[in-house]
């Protein structure tokens, strides 16, 4: 539910179309390289240039990656899939049509489960309509300054394999759309089927948005808008939020509903933080899809699908469940770890196993490790403290050899110096303080602070806190919990 300043009940309806570039070496229908960033027009051939007489040949690996993705997205992989031509004219589409899939896509139905951004103990299942293979177009470079000079065309990207994943209009907030995209990216990078780099165009998102407004006892739908040109997940979120407000105001002003207006396309301008009208979307029939006579259908026998299924391994959703039960950690914490990717999961598991305490390991991951990564802009793969060393440090905390505060000092020392927990403990002069020393320290503090003793006797136990800081100053190795308990016991015993 979007937060609009209105007495009307407003529901936001969002569907996403996500294009992901599959991680092949070569293009979908020719064997030119798909590598990003090459000089213009150095990765083309007669097929991707659309020269007369050139014939496309399917890249088998693209089929394999699409199957793996489909299976991970809980899709059905029908036994037969075929290719269709989608016709439109644009200078970066040299054939005058894009080879895509119309009525028999490689992946049908499916769903992706996401953590509900409004309630992290709740899971939302976002159903998918389909996922189909298609070739990418080239790149047009407009001279933005002049606006009148020629447009330059680079056809390197032409024919790059894309999987277009289409959701049902099942998301109800911008935050949910963003959560879907984050989960999708996590899954696809985990599978290794795509790099999902929005900056390099290997993941592109279009969002279909409209509102259902309750007014005068009726539910009114606003015209559907497809938002394009969003270059980050953050931009997707902001564009949808903007569009929700814009559509509501537009409906108040004009009263226009879905009956009055066909789907429109609007582009997101990140700098202006607004969407702008683009040309009216052509109706689907205008693309004049028909089966591509240059390509044969693809038949995928059951055995092949099952073999692909067997190679998927543990997917992020299953890892979250396993971490929760195996290490006794909360759903939220498992989520944070898994969302950081395989290296973070491995780091956590080694730390937890060495420490013998999953919860403590998780708490340290969430706070100390991730904070340090963020502050120093490190990756977990190159984090200076090996997981096994952190695990050993935490084992000491568990055993009561160190309190959390001292352990943090050790952690910091390990970060800054190439040493393990033992080395850091020794270098910091941390020694275990025996009970006798603590008693002596407490007696001294109680004698020096009769007022605190009075307060505690009067029932104000928390007054003892004042002594903990003093104890820490006198002996940094003194365990605060032990100091507190000893002081209270001594006061009770008079």
């Amino acid at each position, binding site marked *: 539910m979007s937060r609009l300043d209105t007495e009307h009940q407003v529901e936001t309806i969002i569907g996403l179309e996500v294009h992901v570039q599959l991680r*092949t*070496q*070569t293009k979908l229908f*020719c*064997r*030119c*390289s798909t590598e990003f960033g090459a*000089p*213009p*027009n*150095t*990765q*083309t*051939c*007669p097929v991707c*240039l659309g*020269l007369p007489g050139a014939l496309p*040949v*399917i*890249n*088998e*690996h*693209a*089929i394999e990656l699409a199957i793996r993705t489909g299976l991970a997205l809980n899709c059905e992989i029908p036994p*037969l899939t*075929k290719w269709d031509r989608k*016709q*439109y*004219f*644009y*200078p970066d*589409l040299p054939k005058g049509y894009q080879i895509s899939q119309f009525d*028999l896509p490689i992946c049908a139905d499916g769903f992706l489960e996401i953590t509900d951004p409004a309630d992290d103990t709740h899971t939302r299942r976002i159903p998918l309509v389909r996922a189909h293979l298609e070739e990418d*177009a080239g790149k*047009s*470079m*407009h*001279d933005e300054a002049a*606006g*009148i*000079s*020629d*447009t*330059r*065309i*680079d*056809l390197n990207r032409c024919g790059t394999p894309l999987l277009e994943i289409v959701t049902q209009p099942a998301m109800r907030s911008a935050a949910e759309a963003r959560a879907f995209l984050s989960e999708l990216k996590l899954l696809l990078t985990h599978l290794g089927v795509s790099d999902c780099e929005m900056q390099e165009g290997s993941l592109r998102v279009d969002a279909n948005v409209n509102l259902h407004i309750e007014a005068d006892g009726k539910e009114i739908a606003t015209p559907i808008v497809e938002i*394009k*040109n969003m270059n980050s997940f953050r931009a997707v979120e902001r564009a949808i939020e903007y569009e929700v407000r814009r559509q509501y105001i537009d409906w108040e002003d004009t009263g226009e509903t879905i009956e009055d207006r066909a789907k429109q396309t609007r*582009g997101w301008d990140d700098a202006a933080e607004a969407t702008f009208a*683009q*040309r009216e979307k052509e109706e689907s029939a*205008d693309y*004049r899809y028909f*089966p591509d006579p240059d390509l*044969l*259908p*693809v*038949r995928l026998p059951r055995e092949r699908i099952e073999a692909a299924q067997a190679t998927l391994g543990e997917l992020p959703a299953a890892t979250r469940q396993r971490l929760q039960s195996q290490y006794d950690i909360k759903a939220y914490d498992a989520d944070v770890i898994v969302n950081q990717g395989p290296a973070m999961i491995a780091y956590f598991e080694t730390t937890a196993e060495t420490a013998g305490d999953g919860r403590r390991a998780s708490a340290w991951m969430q706070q100390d490790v991730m904070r340090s990564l963020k502050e120093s802009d490190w990756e977990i793969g190159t984090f200076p403290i090996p997981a096994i060393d952190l695990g050993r440090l935490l084992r000491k905390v568990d055993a009561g050899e160190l309190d959390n505060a001292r352990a943090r000092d050790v952690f910091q020392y390990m970060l800054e110096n190439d040493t393990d927990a033992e080395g850091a403990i020794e270098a910091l002069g941390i020694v275990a303080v025996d009970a006798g020393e603590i008693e002596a320290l407490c007696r001294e503090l109680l004698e020096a602070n009769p007022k605190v003793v009075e307060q505690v006797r009067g029932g104000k136990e928390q007054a003892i806190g004042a002594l903990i800081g003093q104890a820490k100053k006198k002996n940094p190795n003194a365990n605060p919990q032990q100091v507190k308990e000893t002081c209270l016991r001594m006061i009770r015993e008079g």
Partner: protein
Amino acid sequence: MSLSGADVRKLALLARLELSDAEVAVLGPQLARILDFVEQLSELDTEEVEPMTTALDVVNRWAPDKLHRSLTVDEALAAAPRRDESCFLVPPVLGPAH
């Protein structure tokens, strides 16, 4: 089947053809005759017939994901009506079309 002038103009727009009124008048009936010819197929009863995706009796013609040599820039741009050192040049395009 008859085609209105508006139908013909819409098809022309999609095909990026500029037609004069005279041409629309000539092409309309021609297109209608072509459609009528194809329309004869609808006389057949296809109720029990599985849709066919290809007339050929082969499937799964694909190639491994192995890099082949691409054209050089000059080869790629050889047929371009206009070019600069590395790109095809086309008249300025305003806004994205798809």
